[in-house]
């Protein structure tokens, strides 16, 4: 394997690395873009020429060291070239998400004092022109796609071709200028401004040094090797840190080929044509791929459905024993991998949120080497990953190298606390915001704001944002949402509320998923009348108890659910019990169900309920039922009281 750290020592900025690649591998393919239905290759020489023209074009327009240059649009070769060109003149690249809102775009462009923006097409140009006086410093807009641009006569607009022409002319006049510029770039200088996800206020801009990104990529590559034979399809947003790491950092360092899809909605098709060796998708993308497969199987012939069932059963059975099933591969998985474009996949990742265990197993059985990664923008994206062969869907893996140090601060008795990290390549602080930098960095350690712990195998488990944690009366921290999400991965559970803040132990109020459980009941010849009736059946309780016990098995003892009941109605946003995005409103629920919650913690086995449900159409219904509380044993006063 290549010594990537040594290569970074040789060329510690993007333009230097690009020049080195062009010199050594000029005619090899660096990038591909699908255009007019065909994959068009860009060699390292083409890449280098485009970057040179752009860089000298920037110089011609009077830009230089320290200037911030914005880039907005779909993932395209010009996007990447614009970033490397910005670095070549000593500028700072600022990627904007393609669906950024006006307000945020103007905030970021003003904050960075950007004078020039690379905008892909009419859509993005429209957006920038609409900002008008709100971005007074913006002097140039370079667009790559001329379609629809005829109607504008704004003096700030220039086509990428004309802009590159400017650079080419300068290169003819001063053939050595570009090399001099590249020689002057320094790896430790800030080169990238990366927006951090601001959930409440304006996003902050993390200052990243290109040399550090490359070094971090070298660390990453040592843990998860890639090389020139690898194919990557770039579909994640380029302003996002992980895509920066893959497309620019790793792309330049290990020369894996980067492929740009034709349009976002042709992604699955283009993915299949390329058959990448590595993919990173958000959990919901993996979920939707799995759901698509299941939906398509339902439309297939009975014979194919039968094959699918046999294949899945045999595949999952083999997976449980840590093996692969040859039969399943022959009748199902080989074809499935081909359909999804996963035939050449050597490495696959997910991150950002939890992925359901069933989906995880589905892909693992298929032979997709799925792993979870975890990281933050400030720490250059991922820094923990599952080691090959030690994949545990409940964790986010281990630090990629010894140089990545992870500490758990303010841990409770069970080791749950804030994840605090440092590594030699982390960010240099927030741009023009030293207060925020001081708040988030202590003695060189970055406070992630996430809560987590190390499990028995020394793998990191990330639970939730630290501010969303609750604490039991014994001072044990837990994340209600984390456990609720785990419960909701069960097809039988629609909603769940985990209780326990200020109490002795954890309990759950669960809403059954009526559509699925009613089918299940029909199949099992169980008669029922209404939701409330179904939710009070002992058979249903038994079914749900198994689901809760499965979840409990994945949790440390202190976070296990010791009692649960099935609610007589579904939680509803119209009743104020959920937000419109279906998040549990704990305050409302604690108040509304105070009687029931008290009864659970009193240790009652049955709780009589007599209440009125108001439906959306205004009608009301009186509900009289008895809720059973299932005690799962465990520990603490609840168990004692129940005895």
């Amino acid at each position, binding site marked *: 394997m290549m010594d990537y750290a040594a290569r970074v020592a040789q060329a510690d900025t993007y333009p230097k690395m690009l020049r080195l690649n062009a010199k050594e591998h000029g005619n090899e393919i660096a990038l591909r873009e699908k255009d*007019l*239905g*065909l994959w068009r290759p860009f060699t390292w020489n083409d890449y280098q020429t485009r970057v040179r023209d752009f860089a000298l074009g920037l110089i011609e327009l009077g830009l230089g060291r320290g200037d911030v240059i914005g880039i907005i649009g779909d993932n395209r070769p010009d996007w990447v070239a614009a970033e490397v060109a910005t670095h070549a003149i000593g500028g700072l690249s600022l990627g904007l998400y393609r669906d950024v809102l006006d307000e945020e775009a103007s905030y970021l462009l003003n904050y960075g004092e950007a004078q020039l923006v690379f905008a892909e097409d009419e859509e993005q140009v429209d957006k920038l022109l609409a900002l008008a006086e709100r971005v007074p410093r913006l002097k140039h807009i370079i667009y790559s796609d001329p379609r*629809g641009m005829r109607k504008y006569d704004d003096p700030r607009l220039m086509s990428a071709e004309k802009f590159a022409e400017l650079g080419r002319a300068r290169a003819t006049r001063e053939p050595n200028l570009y090399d001099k510029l590249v020689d002057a770039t320094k790896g430790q200088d800030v080169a990238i401004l990366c927006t951090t996800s601001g959930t409440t206020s304006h996003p902050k801009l993390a200052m990243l040094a290109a040399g550090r990104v490359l070094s971090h990529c070298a660390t990453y590559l040592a843990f998860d090797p890639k090389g020139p034979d690898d194919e990557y399809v770039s579909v994640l947003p380029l302003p996002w840190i992980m895509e920066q790491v893959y497309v620019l950092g790793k792309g330049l360092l290990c020369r894996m080929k980067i492929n740009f899809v*034709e*349009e976002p909605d042709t992604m699955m*098709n283009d993915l299949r044509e390329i058959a990448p060796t590595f993919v990173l998708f958000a959990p919901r993308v993996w979920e939707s791929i799995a759901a698509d497969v299941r939906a398509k199987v339902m439309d297939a012939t009975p014979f194919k459905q039968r094959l699918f069932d046999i294949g899945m059963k045999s595949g999952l059975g083999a997976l449980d024993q840590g093996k692969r099933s040859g039969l399943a591969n022959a009748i199902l998985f080989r074809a499935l991998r081909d359909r999804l474009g996963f035939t050449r996949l050597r490495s696959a990742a997910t991150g950002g949120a939890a992925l359901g265990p069933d989906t995880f197993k589905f892909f693992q059985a298929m032979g997709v080497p799925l792993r979870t990664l975890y990281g933050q923008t400030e720490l250059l994206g991922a820094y923990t990953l599952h080691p090959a062969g030690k994949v545990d869907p409940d964790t986010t893996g281990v630090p990629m190298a010894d140089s990545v140090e992870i500490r758990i601060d303010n841990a409770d008795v069970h080791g749950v606390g804030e994840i605090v990290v440092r590594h030699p390549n982390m960010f240099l602080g927030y741009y023009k915001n030293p207060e925020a930098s001081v708040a988030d960095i202590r003695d060189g350690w970055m406070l992630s704001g996430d809560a987590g712990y190390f499990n028995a195998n020394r793998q990191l488990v990330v639970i939730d944002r630290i501010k969303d944690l609750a604490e039991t009366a014994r001072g044990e921290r837990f994340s209600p949402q984390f456990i609720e999400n785990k419960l909701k991965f069960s097809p039988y559970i629609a909603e769940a509320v985990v209780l326990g803040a200020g109490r002795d132990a954890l309990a759950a109020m669960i809403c059954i998923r009526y559509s699925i459980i009613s089918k299940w009941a029909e199949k099992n010849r169980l008669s029922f009348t209404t939701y409330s009736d179904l939710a009070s059946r002992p058979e249903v309780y038994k079914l749900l108890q198994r689901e809760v016990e499965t979840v409990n098995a994945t949790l440390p003892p202190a976070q296990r659910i010791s009692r649960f009941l099935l609610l007589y109605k579904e939680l509803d946003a119209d009743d104020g019990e959920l937000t419109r995005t279906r998040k549990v409103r704990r305050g409302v629920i604690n108040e509304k169900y105070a009687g029931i919650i008290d009864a659970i913690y009193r240790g009652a086995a049955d709780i009589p309920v007599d209440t009125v449900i108001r439906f959306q159409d205004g009608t009301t219904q009186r509900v009289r039922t008895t809720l059973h509380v299932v005690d799962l044993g465990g520990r603490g006063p609840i168990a004692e009281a129940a005895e």
Partner: protein
Amino acid sequence: MATSLEVRGVSLRFGGVRALTDVSFAINDGELFSIIGPNGAGKTSIVNCISGRYKPTEGQLFYQGRDITGLTPNARPKLGIGRTFQNLALFHHMSVLDNIMVGRHHLLKNNFLTGSLYWLTGARKEELEHRRKVEEIIDFLDLQSVRKATAGTLSYGLRKRVELARAMALEPRLILLDEPMAGMNFEEKEDMARYVVDLNEEFGMTVVMIEHDMGVVMDISHRVMVLDFGRKIAEGDPAAVLADPHVKRAYLGEEDEALVDPDDAPPAQESAA
């Protein structure tokens, strides 16, 4: 500006039904011209006369100064006239790509026999050139994701777009769009309006459009003609047409009584009936 199409005193009768009565108008090169009117006003009839499906009972049609009244429908694409249909007319079992390729048919030099000798007769090279043109249209209309899908499986809005693509593949100088936005949701309409404008501005095609959505018509048309019961009742720029009292009465209804000239108001007994 040169005249693209001139319609001179065209009447069309089906037995006793007078579909069109003495309709005359002229469309300039590069114009986006809309024809509006209530149901049964004769909009599609006039478009069918232009495209050659109907032969006018009286009157003449001139395209680029040439009399095309008696030309067969299949002779017109060669002159540069293309059209789409109000009710979709795609080949449902063919792919989107093949449907659009059909639009290139009159531009192909190879025929059934020479085409079978693929390499020898240059059919291969010819197909590649045409495929490129088709891909440009696919790119223009954002049809990439359905390029290889069977036309019949697509949503209505997409099929409308494929039909437009096929008409564009003819490389017409004058394109007739018969209700391109009918049955579409707001978003699809917005997209289609953008394509029509780009068609006109980027590709320089003269566009004749029949459309019911007044918002779209008034927003994007250069000039509008209004038909009612087969007669032309108004013609001019959108704002002027919108303000025309005849148009209000015939087409837009009379919600705003105050704006209607008392002389133009219908007789009392009629409104009582």
